[in-house]
């Protein structure tokens, strides 16, 4: 059983050299990409969350892994270590969700992705203790996105939304906004609702 704490610990954990190199490559790819014009509708390019949305829309046109995480980090002007940490968090959540999650119709890239994006943002913002927990909680309750639209224009929207929600979650937590204590492994938390066989 992978608990909420296992993900929280990854936020400030050291990251390996290989992971940083991979993250550097991902950052370069997304920097070079552009969002489709349609996905700019109603988005404020001047705010950090708006930028996260646009980078997310751009990232979804590349082949990078955990596009929402990469986009969140770019929006915060941070670098590869945060991408690596956020990706590790996303991978851990993905592992905990397991095959029933995707079989039910959810898109891991955005469900685990929004949590990873919040983890990366929490690292960049230097959140500690409860604020990290709440950032993850604010993001987890918003985990959404459907496998069926992955790779389409709408698929880019859900990645963009996950990137923005991840950044927003960390900013909200920094300002004292609270969330569940055990948002991932709790009785009515993300894992129970989104991966338990029905």
């Amino acid at each position, binding site marked *: 059983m992978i608990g909420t704490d296992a993900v929280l610990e990854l936020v400030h954990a050291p990251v390996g050299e290989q992971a940083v190199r991979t993250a550097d490559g991902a950052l370069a790819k997304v920097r070079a990409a552009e969002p489709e014009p*349609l*996905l700019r*509708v*109603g988005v*404020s390019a*001047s*705010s*950090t*969350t*708006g930028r996260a949305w646009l980078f997310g829309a751009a990232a979804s046109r590349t082949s990078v892994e955990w596009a929402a995480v990469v986009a969140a980090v770019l929006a915060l002007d941070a670098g590869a270590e945060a991408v690596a940490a956020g990706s590790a968090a996303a991978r851990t959540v993905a592992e905990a969700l397991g095959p029933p999650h995707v079989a*039910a*119709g*959810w898109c891991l890239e*955005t469900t685990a992705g929004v949590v990873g994006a919040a983890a990366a943002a929490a690292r960049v913002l230097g959140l500690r203790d409860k604020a990290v927990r*709440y950032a993850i*909680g*604010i993001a*987890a*309750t*918003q*985990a*959404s*996105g*459907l496998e*069926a*639209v992955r790779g*389409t*224009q*709408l698929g880019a*929207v*859900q990645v963009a*939304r996950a990137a923005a*929600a991840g950044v*927003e979650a960390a*900013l*909200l937590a920094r*300002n*004292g*906004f*609270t*969330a*569940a*204590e*055990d*948002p991932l492994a*709790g*009785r*009515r*938390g*993300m894992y*129970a*609702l989104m991966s338990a066989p029905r």
Partner: protein
Amino acid sequence: MPFAPTQVFCTNVRKAADAPLPDAVSRAARRSLFNVLGTAIGAARTEAVAALIATAEELGATGAVPVPGRRESLDPEWAAIVTGTAAHLDDFDDTHLATVIHPGAAVLAAVLALAPETRPDGSAVLTAFALGCEAQLRIGVAISPSHYDRGWHITGTCGVFGAAVAAGYLLGLDAERLGHALGIASTGTLGHREAFGSMTKPLHPGKAAAVGVSAARLAAAGLTAPEDPLGPGGVLPVFSEPVYDELQRGWDATWELEYNAFKPYPCGIVAHPAIDAAVGASPAVGDPGAITAVELTCHPLVPELMGRLQPADGLQARFSARHAAAVGLLDGEVGLRQFSDERAVEADVTRLRALIQLVPSPDCPRDSATIRVARAGAEPVVVHVEHARGSADRPLTDDELFTKVDRLVEPVLGAGAARKILAAVDGLAGAPGLDAVIEAVRPEVAK
């Protein structure tokens, strides 16, 4: 296509949009709107709302959209988040009892967010609000009760659809584009019940509003979603075992919105009959010091869900039927003040709570209760409540609703504000726009 719930659903929404609202629906919409403006204003000065506004300002998200009870104007997205969250914050907003959806919060937030740029007249505001609530409730009915029972906060998950419909109506989407808006919204559903007890619970309708508005905008700009997002290939079977017939039902008979109920007290609804009984007994009781014992006969869910004996703060007090009955007896009214951190621990309340015995009875209906207050040297006071105020059989009267909203908004906007809000909401059908409502729900500019 023989089976396309989304197509039928959106065609019905458009048909309802193009006809005048039936009188009963219009009344339900106005009452819901009045109530949810009241709860949004009542929560405007809370810590959670302050944290949201601080974040919005950090992001530079100021704009032209007013926020009820606040001086700030934000951009549409953040105004939607703040208003939707504030409206649900005290769990005092409208409740559709069959689904436990609070439909008004996300829809109010979506309508206010788009009003400055779409300039709807008053009647279009009411229609947008009614359509958004109704769409949300019908989708909720199709996946109830198993969806909520599994642990989803249905106010968030269905809220995105309600907000998308209200926003889509204001943006003038036809049935086909509305279907795409619902499809876009279906990729942004949110709300786990694990968040209950934290600020994130009310954030659900706030974010649902923002997701719905964004979905409608994208659909208006031409973004498409896979066909039939409310059908078997969409998100609903991921949530529950949907009853698709509910989505295809005509909108010509009774609307679900007509069953929207208003809580008279800001705590769990199961304790409301007991509070009614306590408030009813209060004038006859006299000196509270003479009370020797209180026996409260109630439905078994009361001690199960609200069994806390001595709460330590206001939030805990909301989960204590004994607290609710004690303040009802002592104060003769039960509003936000009775659930403040201070009132939760005052000596007279603490003493009386300890004297209250909950007597759960399987024969007691959920909307009934009996209180028996034993007094030294006097006859006991006994009050029986057949149907609690705010229940299906005993809806809140217009006067009671007014009193509720008045008490919510008076501390924020001052005396007389509720009267102005009610007049503006009741006058919407013939109003040129939303201006009178906006003026009534905002604090006066500092003199």
